[in-house]
């Protein structure tokens, strides 16, 4: 008999509806606590609350700038509401004894206090989150100013300074990202916008001759059969709509479909010896999202011309194995326990590295994170790609050491979508790209030298 007839409602949507309905008909004798105001707003006058309520329900049609909106949210949050109801016994039953009623009231009040406390805590958490977001936005705003006014005009002198490097690590603001990437990647190949136009015109010619079925395909690209080229051009077409399918912008009829097609087509004419290789469409797509078409082409060609990318996209298997071997040197150095576990389970680096390196993480990481990886890759070069791989392994070291082959392979080729970005970058930062006083490039050169000697036939050096 001692159960107080108290109803605790915490479902947000439900209580919200209740709340609005109850405001209209206040004569039910229910007690209702809702929208616990934050400390600094607890003395708000009812008029202001009413005004805000109107704004929220859209009754007032004043346009609100996004900035105001954020501020308002800070002041007054649409919190989950808690309704707590204390009812007397129905009239047809005997009334509660005074003592019991007193006890129930007391229990009821305690519950209310608890609920309020919980709500307040939740409100504070949300407020903190919002403040964090505002702070982040402000930081990005400041960073844009620094990049635009200080760094970009003095690129040559400033790009290697400590301050810039640090700012760079934080992530380049999206509005200047394309320009910084372009500058950092450079244009060693001296590609001009005109060259892009010429390559594109040639590609278009080839598409036309292919679609009309004429066999007069130019034979300037000796060594590559017309059939192979045809397959390559065909494959580009098929792969474009399979590039970031979730974004829905590269698909047939999408705004960037033709741009992506053009860049990839132009590249096969510019470098027929490399041609189109799956994975390229992702790199081109990320560049298109940050740069104008011709500049994206220039960055794309120069990026693929870097030694690591050339080795992979020309599928120089011998050289790829050297890259994997170098990676393993740093893997063992940084994560010896996991390295041993992988060895025991026959998890070789080609299983997970191929996709990561070919697409520069754009297929395997969320796009915003992939862009941050690209930021630092543009700063530090190929070694950062391998450092990132080790960062991923470090981040998930504990779970990976408990997995067997197939689970490791599945996990690494399909990374969790909710990869925590800050922890991830902390993991990467903790990876030392130094092995016995040797840096990445030195290890790579040493391995290449060893390999050449092995090829020349000195079996003593093998393994």
């Amino acid at each position: 008999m001692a159960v107080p007839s108290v109803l605790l409602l915490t479902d947000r949507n439900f209580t919200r509806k209740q709340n609005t309905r109850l405001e209209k008909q206040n004569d039910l004798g229910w007690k209702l606590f809702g929208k616990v105001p934050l400390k600094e707003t607890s003395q708000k006058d009812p008029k202001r609350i009413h005004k805000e309520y109107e704004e929220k329900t859209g009754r007032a049609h004043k346009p609100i700038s996004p900035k105001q909106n954020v501020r308002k949210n800070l002041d007054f949050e649409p919190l989950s509401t808690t309704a707590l109801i204390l009812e007397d016994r129905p009239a047809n039953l005997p009334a509660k004894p005074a003592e019991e009623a007193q006890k129930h009231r007391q229990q009821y009040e305690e519950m209310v206090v608890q609920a309020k406390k919980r709500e307040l805590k939740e409100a504070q958490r949300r407020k903190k989150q919002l403040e964090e977001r505002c702070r982040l936005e402000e930081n990005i705003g400041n960073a844009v100013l620094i990049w635009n006014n200080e760094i970009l005009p003095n690129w040559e002198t400033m790009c290697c300074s400590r301050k810039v490097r640090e700012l760079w690590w934080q992530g380049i603001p999206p509005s200047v990202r394309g320009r910084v990437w372009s500058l950092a990647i450079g244009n060693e190949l001296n590609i001009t916008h005109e060259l892009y136009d010429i390559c594109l015109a040639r590609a278009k010619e080839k598409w036309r001759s292919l679609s009309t079925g004429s066999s007069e395909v130019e034979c300037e690209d000796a060594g590559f059969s017309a059939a192979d080229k045809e397959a390559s051009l065909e494959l580009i077409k098929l792969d474009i709509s399979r590039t970031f399918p979730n974004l829905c912008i590269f698909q047939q009829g999408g705004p960037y479909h033709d741009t992506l097609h053009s860049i990839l087509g132009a590249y096969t004419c510019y470098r027929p010896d490399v041609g189109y290789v799956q994975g390229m469409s992702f790199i081109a797509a990320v560049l298109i999202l940050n740069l104008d078409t011709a500049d994206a082409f220039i960055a794309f060609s120069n990026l693929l011309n870097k030694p690591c990318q050339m080795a992979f996209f020309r599928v120089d298997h011998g050289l790829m194995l050297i890259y994997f071997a170098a990676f393993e040197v740093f893997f063992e150095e940084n994560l010896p326990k996991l390295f041993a576990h992988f060895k025991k389970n026959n998890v070789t680096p080609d299983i997970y590295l191929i996709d990561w390196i070919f697409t520069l993480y754009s297929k395997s990481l969320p796009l915003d994170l992939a862009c941050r990886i690209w930021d630092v890759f543009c700063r530090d070069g190929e070694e950062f790609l391998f450092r990132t791989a080790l960062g991923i392994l470090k981040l998930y070291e504990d779970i990976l050491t408990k997995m067997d082959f197939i689970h490791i392979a599945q996990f690494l080729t399909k990374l969790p979508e909710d990869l925590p970005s800050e922890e991830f970058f902390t993991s990467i930062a903790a990876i030392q790209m130094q092995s016995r006083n040797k840096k990445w490039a030195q290890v790579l050169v040493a391995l290449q030298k060893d390999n050449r000697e092995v090829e020349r036939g000195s079996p003593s050096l093998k393994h």
Partner: protein
Amino acid sequence: MAGSEAGKGNGGFRIILLGDSTVGKSSLLRCYTEGSFIPAPCPTVGVEFYSKMMDLPPGIKVKLQLWDTAGQERFRCITRSFYRNAVGVLLVFDMTNRKSFEHITEWYHEVASIQLMEKVVFLLIGHKSDLKSDCKVSTEEAEGLAASLGMGFIETSAKNNTNVDLAFQTLTNTIYEALKNKEIDLQEGWDGVKVIHKKNCNPQKKKRKTQEKCLC
């Protein structure tokens, strides 16, 4: 590791899917393991993995380790190193793409030239059977090729989920039969088939033995 797996099943088969780009290897696997179909999935770069448990008739559970490979010809020298450890191969072509069918013999010889095992079990898959009107390869022709290469043939569709389970069941059963008849030779250090003996499972002992061998 083997000990913990013993509770779950009696072994594992490694199966690899090969065939030209865009014939639908990934879709076939996604349909089989997740029961879903996405019209244009991302192209596979390198290799991707799926796994599923399968019940074989006499109360035996087998864990299928499914390797999905990149189809572009350029990647062949990379994927080649993956064939070696497979016991089953699904050779997949697109029924609406004549070329992908013509390349099947090449894919077959690729594996045959690399695979060191006595026997690998193959199965030919004619995929996208839902697109009947666009068919560029007849069932008879595909069956003829399969027979000449000594393997079975099944038409599948991931879009309609037609024969997908059947394909994997057929392949797994054939592997199992071959194992029972000792047609497949089990070698140490080969990952194509993992047999877990329920009673006496002591991998450490085994290891020590091989180490001793090395010392001799």
